[in-house]
């Protein structure tokens, strides 16, 4: 086999326009590759479908984050004013829930926001300062103006020569070896 080079992480192709990237991603998926990724300087909605990216679980997590915040807020205030230290304020009921709404509302938003941000970073596996793709010198243009498509060596369809020729046939600027 040609991919005896154990230090190879994958193959990467560089494209000039988002259209080329999406077309290439579609061909790669149709050819049966699954361990693939695309890199672009801005979000491309079409790539999700082209690469077959499933919808993230994040919204569900954020919902439960918000519910946790709400229950925490209501529970905290009920505990403070009803259980731990009941205080008669102007003869109002101890469990005067309407006045507990604002703080519980803010806590709902706070925890939902934390879940959205840290959940997104966690699911993305960030922070991760080192990643093999950074070994390709031209990859620094992925945050600027170029579009990249990656097929990992772990993919069961991956064979160095075949995959390299296949990627070259997609019309890229260049195909790079990505070292581990």
């Amino acid at each position, binding site marked *: 086999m040609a991919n005896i080079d154990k230090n190879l992480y994958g193959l990467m192709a560089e494209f000039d326009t988002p259209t080329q990237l999406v077309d290439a991603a579609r061909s790669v998926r149709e050819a049966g590759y699954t361990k693939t990724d695309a890199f672009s300087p801005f979000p491309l909605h079409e790539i999700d479908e082209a690469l077959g990216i499933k919808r993230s679980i994040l919204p569900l997590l954020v919902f439960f984050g918000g519910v946790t915040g709400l229950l925490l807020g209501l529970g905290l205030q009920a505990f403070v004013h009803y259980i731990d230290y009941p205080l008669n304020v102007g003869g109002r009921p101890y469990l005067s829930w309407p006045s507990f709404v604002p703080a519980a509302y803010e806590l709902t938003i706070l925890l939902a926001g934390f879940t959205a941000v840290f959940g997104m970073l966690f699911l993305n596996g960030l922070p*991760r300062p080192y990643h093999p793709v950074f070994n390709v010198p031209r990859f620094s243009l992925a945050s600027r103006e170029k579009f990249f498509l990656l097929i990992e060596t772990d993919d069961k369809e991956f064979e160095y020569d075949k995959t390299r020729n296949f990627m070259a046939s997609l019309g890229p600027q260049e195909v790079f070896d990505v070292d581990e």
Partner: protein
Amino acid sequence: MVEGDHTFGSVSDKIGDLALKKKTPFHWFIGFGIAFMVAQLLLFTVVTLLARGIGIWGNNQPVGWAFDIINFVWWIGIGHAGTLISAILLLLNQKWRTSINRFAEAMTLFAVACAAMFPLLHTGRPWLAAYWLFPYPNTMGIWPQFRSPLIWDVFAVSTYATISLLFWYVGLIPDLATLRDRAKNKYFKLVYGLLAWGWRGSARHWHRYEIAYLLLAGISTPLVLSVHSIVSFDFSVSQVPGWHATIFPPYFVAGAIFAGFAMVLILCIPLRVWYNMKDFITDTHLIYMGKVMLATGLIVVYGYAMEAFFGWYSASEYEVFMIKNRIWEGPYWWSYWLLILCNGMSIQLLWFKRFRESPFWLFMISIVVSIGMWLERFVIIVTSLNRDFLPSSWAMYSPTMFDWSMFIGTIGFFFTLIYLFVRFLPIISIFEVRTLLPSAQVHGHQQDFEENVLEAENTYEKTDPPKS
């Protein structure tokens, strides 16, 4: 929304170079120097305040709240435009927000930082106040009073500050990665690299990123409306004539957006000239902001009318007296009329194209509106308190030197932070501007059916109808 011939690369260079270029423009040093010196007034006041106590301020019975809360509400209000631009306009799919959202969000953060100082320092010794601000099990076994609007305020403002920071930072991550990849100085590269958390623009990451960003916008929208509503509860939940009015929450929120857009204009009109950003912050942006100012300003004027109406309609002797005292009989009548002049009259110029389309006039009107919104809080607070129920306790309020030095000091602090932000971070969201370029469109069969239909409809509307 983007003028001139730009490519993905030229956009990245033009905005990124403001932070990365070696030579800092001379006018930056002048501006930063002045702002930093003015900020020393804040340091001076805070040190004096902690050493001598809050007696150095002019507020005393019956005007127990004065500059501390006027300035708090003023600063918090300014912050609201940032969240409005970044969250509400995102949900409404207003593409013009893209080139102004970054520094509007920065403005929000810095304004909230200035705002929070006032109530915190009004406690006198903030480190001792923690037990009644935040619910933590303390050795005294007591808790904050959750039935008080002041505690709602603590929760609202601290949540607002945290979520605004997260929103701003999440928006910055891809741009920090751009700066990391472009930086030549190794220290800059390291710092931007650490802050970018290894962002590499993967399609899977972008997918979750966009969901997270949209959800943040979705929760920031009710948040920003709730924050100024809760700030207005500080007044309207009390029984004081002039404060106890149901119009307060919407009227405060509109006023906040009004003041905030004025501040965004004050910041971006010079910024786009000094940094040659007219391609991204176009005249169209300024005109839109002028229109938002006019609309929210009119809501605020409606609020003033309703306040007077409520006073009369309540048939309460004290309410009627308060309105008379505020508008023509009291010692502070001039502040009310100055307020009407600044907030009510000045914005009427925005009905005319000549003023709305001139950056100079927009800038002048924005400054007048900022002063007007400060006066609004002065009128609401001081004229409601200075003549209360008992004539024997009537008194005049006048700010001391320390009131002024703290207020002016926070303005210096605010501009110091703005100058640092402009120097070290991208002032316009680079990756979002890239999406506005025509070359960012994916052509061909990938588009959804619905998008194709919409596009066809739009093209049809833009072309001339066929002649019969």
